[in-house]
């Protein structure tokens, strides 16, 4: 089945997975807060690397053109502390993601949300803990 690409330009509040890095790495310098890519594709690679994790997703558009999206997350340590590990997403899985486009290289994007095709309600690599919600 051919993967389907939809690119939407949407104004959204920024609640991306890359937030922990924003203070140091200038999110708004690098990424377009107003340009949100929404696409479906197949995970080709996951890098549990420093300083930040990257998930690569191959997306084929209606004309058959393939684009590999390089999605930046926060540090692998922060993701692990949320309880995720390397078995939670692997190459070959079909996913749908939303991400903020890179200002110059659009396919280098800051991941906002990612779900698997077979579990569309479960966001991968995200979690909300009490202190993130402001209880302290």
């Amino acid at each position, binding site marked *: 089945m051919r993967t389907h690409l939809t690119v939407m330009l949407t104004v959204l509040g920024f609640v991306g997975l890359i937030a922990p890095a924003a203070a140091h790495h200038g999110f708004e310098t690098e990424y377009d807060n107003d340009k949100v890519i929404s696409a479906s594709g197949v995970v080709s690679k996951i890098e549990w690397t420093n300083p930040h994790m990257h998930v690569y997703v191959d997306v084929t558009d209606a004309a058959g053109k393939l684009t590999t999206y*390089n999605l930046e997350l926060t540090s692998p340590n922060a993701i692990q502390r949320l309880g995720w590990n390397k078995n939670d997403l692997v190459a070959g899985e079909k996913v749908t993601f939303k991400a903020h486009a890179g200002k110059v290289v659009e396919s280098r994007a800051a991941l906002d949300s990612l779900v698997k095709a077979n579990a569309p309600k479960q966001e991968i690599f995200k979690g909300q803990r009490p202190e993130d919600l*402001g209880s302290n």
Partner: protein
Amino acid sequence: MKKMFVLSAAVIGTIVLLLVHLQAQQRGQGAPAAGQTGGRGANANEIVVGQLAGRPVIQPVRRGVDYRDAISPTDPAMNGPVPRLPDGHPDLTGPWEGGGSDNDMGVEGGLKEGELDSLLLPAARKLKEERSKAIYGEPYIYCLPMSVPRINPYPWKFVMGYTSKGLQYVYQLHETGDAGAHRVIYMDGRRHPDPATLIASWWGHSVGRWEGDTLVIDTVGYNDKFWFDAPGTPHSEKLHTVERWTRISYGTLVNDFTLEDPDTFSKPVQLRFVARIVKPGVELMEYICAENNQIGLAGGYLGKSDASQIGIGGGPVLKDEKK
């Protein structure tokens, strides 16, 4: 006439008493009485977590990336007793979160907005303005050390280095931000080397001593490359810092920080930072920052070749990149 005077005095007295009472109530809402902990500080984002030298210790309450792995400042465990080492000194190990500068050293250290900048000498102020305008000028984002007094939003710890001679070293380790280096604080009584022979370095030369329960760290020999905070508050190689680390309870470690730099600031600067203990089970993890640093590539500021020139990974450039 006399009755009128007495009546007026009574009315005025009542009004004065009422005003005093109202003022006391307002004070009570703003700051807890001496010795009281757990109350709110001067604003809703601060909380009083203890006392040090008769002054309340204020813990900033931040959300999100800051203190994300620390226990809540309202957790009763915060006020537990200070753990002690076998030799009786307080155990400063941690791990901790916070306790240093990051986004604005002056404000984070307890000064008013802009107060720190007002102490910058003209050349230093100009340098900071240039740095603030620069895109990706900060050494830290290229995985270079952040140095003192910076603490980024990840756990860090002191490692108390005992040998057969007792406590000879204290090491300060950061999960991130130290670029894999370790900061060593000599506790063996040695002095700083002759300034004429000292080669400037990222972490400088640190000697430590106990003053009662306070670990005092004196450091000279810094290079001028690292930034005190993200906007680029600068310093020179004449920087001299004194950190006074006091664990006032199980959950709180205070860093009273003095910096002197006659080439940068018009007078010594006194700041206070507060670190919070992490939750049980949180340990420092491996973090090799230079492994896959793709900073600047999405925004088109650095190409792979630029990144390689300054010694960072740069990350893969994909043949199917969409521009």
